[in-house]
């Protein structure tokens, strides 16, 4: 999709062209006016509609599928079952691990969770498909399910050795510590709940497949489709113009996509399949439920001697998801002795997936609650105890931080929040029936780095065009890439057109783990610099150029005009220069891959996550950091918790666009409020099924639940983390919000809630 920046006329756009300016989202007007066309809104000739039939048991086998009535229903084109759907090949995983040589069927005979795709009905209209799908009768041989982590049949699970982190002698140091804290912290299944449900349109033309689908990773999903159908990667085109929220859930090609692409191939017609809202709770995984035990041994001054951490997350019967629960535990505080181990437990669930800050988010709920408990145990202010145990270097990697503005975050947040006025005793602040509590917690997220590729064209009219197969799911890619190209070439952002969301464009890796901005601003900067060099080179050396006689070494390009450095020559526009030298465009491809990278390396980089650089590569450990200060009001009689004030100070390095970064931070904070107080997949244990599978019953915050949120940037450019000095933004701010709220609830009420969400019955 092509997006050209449009001026909003508000003050926020003033001086916004350059990187670091507060340019408003350039895709905003199209979304607000409805002009933005999302993936499944494409109008295609001959479009057929597919509707999924899902398992109603959590464990067992499909005995039979009675589909005659559905086949005979009006408008029905095909009923797909495990017996009638075409056979696919198993695709590699997102690390690019070669797949087992066996067929893949996106419709299940063996049922491992409730809501599994069993069959699909394709009809001329959506309504016909829905009506016919209700006529498909599936019978089962049911077996007992393991419904969740607390199920007696679940067991202790499988140790994940790669998650083990140990130094010193944590057990012995804990045993001899004068102050000991030990508590268990649980988080429930949570769901990404994007506004735009998952869905796609698939169309085959010969052995070429086009898929219109909201995607956080065009090249990765194209690879999966190609491998499923055994066609060359180049034959698959993914188009993903706008994405109505992903939060981690739209990075991979999923079973429903395979069903739609199979149906399109079998029928020789384009097929649309959109999940219902309830299906978005079982068609792919939300955040895995987790359990952690955190023990801290400390001295009476609150200095940590030992941390022993044990974590468990659920995964599915036949898939593996590891939610790294020790990720924050091991780096937030300095400790001479440390041990963290993790198991995964198989339950009858869809395989869990990535949801905003996977790993760091629940990890922070454990350690940031536990250190708060320690602060009360030793009688030291919760902010002070964090500063006393400040990690001056990465305690795990034993490397210097690239940048760590966490002390600055604590200081700026505390100052703005008024933390010094806090009275230490729980239940010591009150307003009528409302108990008031103030809590603090820190968060962090690693800087994930990879490589990107972009093309930058300077066109005859003086405008600049950027193309990349990266995407914008609301975080602002269109906008910051326009700013990057504008600043680098020397034009106004108004004169930059950014095209994203088509796998035919120069490639990009996954949009996840807060890596895209750093990767793509780097690639666009490089391509734009190359294009500028060509432009200036032409202006200096082409005999037809008005600058030719000047014999200058370089020229200045600014505001779309070219001048000599001392202003002693001609002053021409880019388009005049191009016309004078007889060129209709200048074009440069830039990528940040290491020189001499093979074609195979490039393919691997863009279609897997195997080439991502470790955040501790080289001499430094790279992370974003934040400190949240939260005020809650708890009604003493009703147990209802309302967040009344949030001040967060965050270190994401240099901000490419502060307005958009602040918006993402606030989004993470709001999602953290939901996680702390509202969000929970509620299981019917008899059926192994989540029953609150809709947006009326799965509660996310409304505007009325959200107070004014103040965010403060304390970052400084971090050139170890990215070309332009930014660190991660999008994942960071949710990390630490839930413990900050739980800590505030303890301060308000004296009750420590260690199981999220903090609902009213836990407090009355």
């Amino acid at each position, binding site marked *: 999709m092509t997006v050209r920046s449009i001026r909003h006329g508000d003050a926020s756009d003033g001086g916004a062209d350059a990187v670091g300016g507060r340019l408003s989202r350039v895709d905003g007007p199209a979304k607000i006016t409805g002009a933005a066309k999302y993936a499944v809104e494409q109008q295609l000739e001959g479009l057929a509609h597919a509707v999924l039939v899902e398992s109603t048991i959590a464990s067992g086998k499909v005995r039979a599928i009675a589909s005659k009535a559905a086949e005979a229903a009006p408008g029905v084109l095909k009923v797909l079952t495990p017996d009638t759907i075409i056979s696919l090949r198993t695709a590699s995983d997102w690390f690019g691990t070669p797949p087992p040589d066996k067929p893949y069927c996106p419709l299940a005979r063996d049922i491992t969770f409730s809501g599994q795709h069993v069959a699909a009905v394709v009809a001329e209209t959506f309504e016909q498909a829905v009506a016919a799908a209700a006529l498909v009768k599936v019978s089962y041989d049911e077996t007992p399910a393991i419904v969740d982590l607390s199920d007696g049949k679940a067991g202790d699970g499988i140790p994940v050795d790669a998650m083990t982190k140990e130094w010193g002698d944590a057990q012995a140091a804990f045993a001899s510590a004068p102050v000991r804290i030990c508590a268990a912290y649980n988080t429930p299944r949570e769901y990404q709940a994007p506004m735009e449900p998952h869905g796609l349109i698939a169309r085959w033309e010969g052995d070429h497949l086009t898929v219109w689908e909201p995607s956080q990773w065009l090249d990765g999903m194209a690879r999966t489709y190609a491998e499923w159908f055994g066609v060359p990667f180049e034959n698959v085109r993914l188009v993903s113009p706008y994405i109505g929220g992903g939060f981690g859930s739209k990075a991979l090609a999923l079973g429903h996509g395979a069903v739609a692409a199979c149906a399109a191939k079998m029928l020789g017609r384009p097929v649309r399949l959109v999940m219902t809202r309830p299906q978005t709770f079982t068609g792919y995984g939300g955040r895995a439920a987790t359990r952690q035990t955190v023990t801290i041994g400390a001295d009476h001054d609150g200095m940590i001697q030992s941390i022993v951490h044990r974590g468990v997350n659920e995964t599915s019967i036949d898939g593996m998801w590891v939610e790294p629960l020790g990720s924050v535990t091991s780096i937030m505080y300095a400790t001479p002795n440390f041990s963290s181990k993790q198991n995964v437990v198989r339950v009858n669930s869809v395989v869990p997936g990535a949801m905003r800050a996977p790993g760091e988010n629940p990890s922070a709920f454990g350690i940031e609650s536990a250190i708060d408990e320690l602060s009360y145990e030793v009688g030291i202010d919760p902010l002070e105890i964090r500063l006393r145990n400040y990690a001056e270097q990465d305690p795990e990697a034993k490397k210097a931080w690239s940048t760590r503005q966490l002390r600055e975050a604590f200081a700026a947040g505390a100052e703005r929040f008024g933390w010094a006025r806090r009275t230490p005793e729980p239940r010591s602040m009150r307003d009528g029936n409302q108990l008031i509590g103030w809590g603090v917690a820190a968060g962090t997220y690693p800087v994930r780095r990879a490589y990107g590729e972009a093309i930058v064209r300077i066109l005859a009219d003086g405008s600049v065009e950027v193309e990349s197969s990266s995407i914008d799911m609301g975080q602002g890619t269109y906008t910051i890439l326009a700013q990057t190209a504008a600043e680098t070439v020397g034009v106004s952002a108004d004169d930059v057109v950014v095209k994203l969301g088509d796998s035919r464009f120069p490639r990009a890796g996954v949009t996840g783990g807060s890596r895209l901005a750093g990767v793509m601003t780097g690639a666009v900067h490089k391509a734009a610099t190359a294009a500028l060099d060509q432009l200036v080179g032409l202006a200096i050396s082409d005999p037809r150029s008005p600058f030719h006689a000047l014999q200058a070494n370089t020229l200045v390009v600014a505001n779309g005009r070219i001048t000599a450095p001392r202003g002693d020559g001609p002053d021409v526009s880019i388009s005049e220069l191009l016309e004078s030298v007889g060129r209709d465009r200048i074009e440069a491809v830039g990528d940040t891959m290491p020189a001499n990278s093979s074609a195979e390396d490039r393919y691997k980089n863009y279609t897997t996550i195997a080439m991502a650089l470790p955040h501790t590569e080289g001499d430094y450990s790279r992370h974003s950091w934040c400190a949240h200060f939260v005020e809650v009001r708890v009604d003493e009689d009703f147990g*209802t918790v309302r967040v009344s004030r949030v001040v967060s100070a965050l270190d994401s390095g240099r901000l490419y666009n502060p307005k958009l970064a602040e918006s993402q931070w606030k989004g993470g904070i709001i999602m953290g409020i939901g996680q702390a107080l509202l969000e929970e997949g509620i299981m019917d244990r*008899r059926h192994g099924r989540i*029953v609150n599978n809709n947006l*009326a019953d799965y509660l996310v915050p409304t505007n009325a*639940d959200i107070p004014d949120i103040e965010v403060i940037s304390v970052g400084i450019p971090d050139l170890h983390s990215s070309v332009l000095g930014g660190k991660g933004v999008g994942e960071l701010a949710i990390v630490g919000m839930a413990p900050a709220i739980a800590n505030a609830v303890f301060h308000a009420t004296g009750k420590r809630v260690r199981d999220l969400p903090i609902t009213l019955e836990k407090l009355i």
Partner: protein
Amino acid sequence: MRDFAYLRATSTEAARQAAALPGAMLLAGGTTLIDLAKCGVAEPETLVDITHLEGLDGIAVDERGAMIGALARMGHVADHADIKGRFPAVSEAVWQAASAQIRNMATIGGNLMQRTRCPYFRDPSNFSACNKRQPGSGCSAIGGVTRGHAVLGTSEACIAMYPGDLATALVAFDATVHLGERQLLVDDFFLLPGATPDKEHAIEPGEMITAVEIPASAAARRSTYLKVRDRQSYEFAAASAAVGLELEPDGRTIRDLRVALGGVATKPWRARAVEDALKGKVLEPDAVRAASLLAVEGAVDHGANHYKIELAPRVVARAILTLGEAA
């Protein structure tokens, strides 16, 4: 989502006749019916659209009371100056219900016909047992996820909670529902589940709600609707109370008290025991809190909804005391 016939009624009489036919249902704002059709719960053969009928959306308030037409939109009722002035609990109940978008569509008559949010009722493809949907099929909720289920007025056949706010305020102030010529107390309009949870309202085929009438009273004029819920907006009550208070001229003795509960019962729940215990007494916090416990007399929990038994009396007490303070 099967095919259905759509019929636009041209008169109240025509609407009644059309709706009396088997498989026919009245369509007003559609905020419940279309939702239930999407869930596969409602499968009407004919929809009789009454939204174009004239003269049914009026709101008239005078010293005798309020007459609200069945097609008046929730949003209009909530914002109506005389409703706010003479029946604050009614306005508050309505504006705290649903979302602004839904209130702009939903009608008062349709609001009274709102069905339960019981997740088992709403998911026929996964839970075949539901006595409300399919008499005699059993109750999937009992023994399942019950956090939002009723603790008052339940039966062995059904524990589904009545989710509405408006009707809670209506029963507190002895409102009546007009079914053409027939009039019924709202309290009598809603039925306990008993052995027939499929029968939720005392409305017969061929009848249609035409208006709701609320008699004026001093207690209604000094009234409030307190809604406690997990989320601050767009969420059903964990427990709510519609309360009206009239004091004697001494300013401290309770002459009249109205109390109804929402979010805890199988129908809008008038708590007369609380009213009777406090009428004639001095309004005083300890007495109010003690009497409020009577609101949940006979309550039965099903595990996860036990908190409602704790919560509801606290909500009642807070509402009464808040009204008392506002003297």
